[in-house]
């Protein structure tokens, strides 16, 4: 790949990621496609999100409880688990599952539409593939990922509660009172802002990769893999950056 192609790719990605969300404000709006994508990305991902969140909540709680127990602070498990889940682990773990399931699905679907000339047909008929294909996917991701994250966080906290109350034999009501204490605006805002941005990144990256597919089955493999790998990297990197920014914005000292 030479420099010119590289610049062209960055430019194409930039155009896609700007135009796609704006598409929702311009007629025609493809409501049916948006609903279908929301169903696929949201309802379809519920099971994996529930499963992943439950076990992460329980494992984290076991670990923290054991460590705090050594310090004689076991009753504070709830606070540590709650903060970690809501602000860090919940958003990241669920975004990673989402990238694996929905991001790869978007890239392979759009990729095979590219290879089968279906995207060309849209353009021949004067329909913008970005508006028709990318906008519904981006919108559904930035709506659904935060919702999934909220559900997942709740399930994780329940998992934590189960460990605290029935395995470590601590006070369950004290666990919940600590969780209530950390349900302040700063934490909730940080916990929702992240999946919103992750959803945007995953959908833009995956759609871009799908729409730049060429070269048959191998090309499809390449674009699907790149979609998931790039999304994963971007989630992890942007999580760090976002954490820094949010801590700064919310005036918390590190």
């Amino acid at each position, binding site marked *: 790949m030479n420099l010119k192609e590289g610049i062209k790719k960055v430019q194409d990605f930039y155009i896609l990621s700007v135009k796609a969300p704006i598409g929702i404000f311009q007629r025609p709006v493809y409501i049916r496609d948006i609903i279908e994508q929301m169903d696929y990305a949201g309802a379809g991902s519920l099971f994996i999100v529930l499963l992943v969140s439950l076990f992460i909540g329980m494992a984290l709680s076991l670990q923290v409880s054991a460590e705090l127990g050594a310090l004689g602070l076991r009753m504070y498990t709830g606070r540590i688990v709650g903060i970690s889940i809501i602000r860090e682990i919940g958003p990241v773990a669920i975004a990673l599952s989402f990238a694996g399931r929905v991001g790869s699905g978007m890239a392979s679907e759009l990729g095979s539409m590219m290879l*089968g*000339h279906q995207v*060309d047909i849209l*353009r*021949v008929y*004067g329909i913008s593939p970005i508006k028709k294909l990318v906008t519904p996917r981006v919108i559904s991701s930035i709506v659904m990922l935060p919702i999934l994250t909220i559900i997942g966080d709740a399930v994780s906290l329940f998992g934590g509660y189960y460990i605290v109350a029935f395995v470590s034999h601590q006070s369950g009501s004290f666990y919940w009172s600590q969780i209530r204490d950390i349900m302040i605006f700063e934490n909730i805002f940080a916990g929702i802002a992240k999946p919103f941005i992750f959803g945007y990144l995953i959908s833009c990256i995956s759609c871009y990769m799908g729409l730049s597919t060429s070269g048959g089955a191998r090309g499809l493999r390449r674009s699907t893999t790149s979609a998931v790998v790039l999304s994963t990297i971007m989630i992890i990197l942007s999580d760090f950056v976002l954490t820094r920014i949010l801590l700064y914005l919310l005036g918390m000292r590190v």
Partner: protein
Amino acid sequence: MIEFRDVVLSYGDHVVLDRLSFRINFYERVAILGGSGEGKTTILKLILGLIRPDEGRIIIDGQDITVMSESELRDVRMKFSIVFQEGALFDSLSVRDNVAFCLREYSGLSEEEIEERVRALIRRLGIEDAIDLMPEELSGGMQRRVAIARSLAAGRPKTMLYDEPTTGLDPLTSDNICAMIKELSSGEPPDRMGLIIVTHKVSDAAKVADRFMYLKNGKITFDGDMKSLKETTDPELRAFINELFTIEGRC
């Protein structure tokens, strides 16, 4: 008029089209022959402005389309319709919804009117039985028919573009599709709907076209009618069109 002027297109180091030039009137019935990978599909995509050449001009109706934006190209694309190699049907939509696609998108017709038009088209192409099926349930021949119906629903194009419409079909179905294509472009110029068919199946091209071009190494090395095609002295082209002579007796 569709005109290519010294069009060059390459992917990396691989030069697909090498200073390609030709002129085709909208109402003509042209077959572009060539082996696979010679750039036949690429030519159709260039005509529609789906890809841009590296060099050269592509002039449609007097306008240079290589410098147009995507929104300006909309009007140019309206002059054409295309049937891609495997049909390129939307696989999440039924046959009815595929054919109705354009009408739903921008005709502003009511659902009843759309249904009526879709039924008329489907009857014309003889695919009534398939109306509620999904694309993956259709045979190759059926898929092409649905694709033709869908491209006609958008309105009457000046020229239809067919990308290997008979490749991968049995001889009987091929015949059928050819007859269909021929019938759609019957009539007298300049009113008739023209066609450009790209294919490596010479005998099928012979059934629908009356002007033939041979694409080789990114250039048109032959351009003429059936008579001169059969009399060509180019040994390679003779080998390529060999099947025309072997089935001579049958026709």
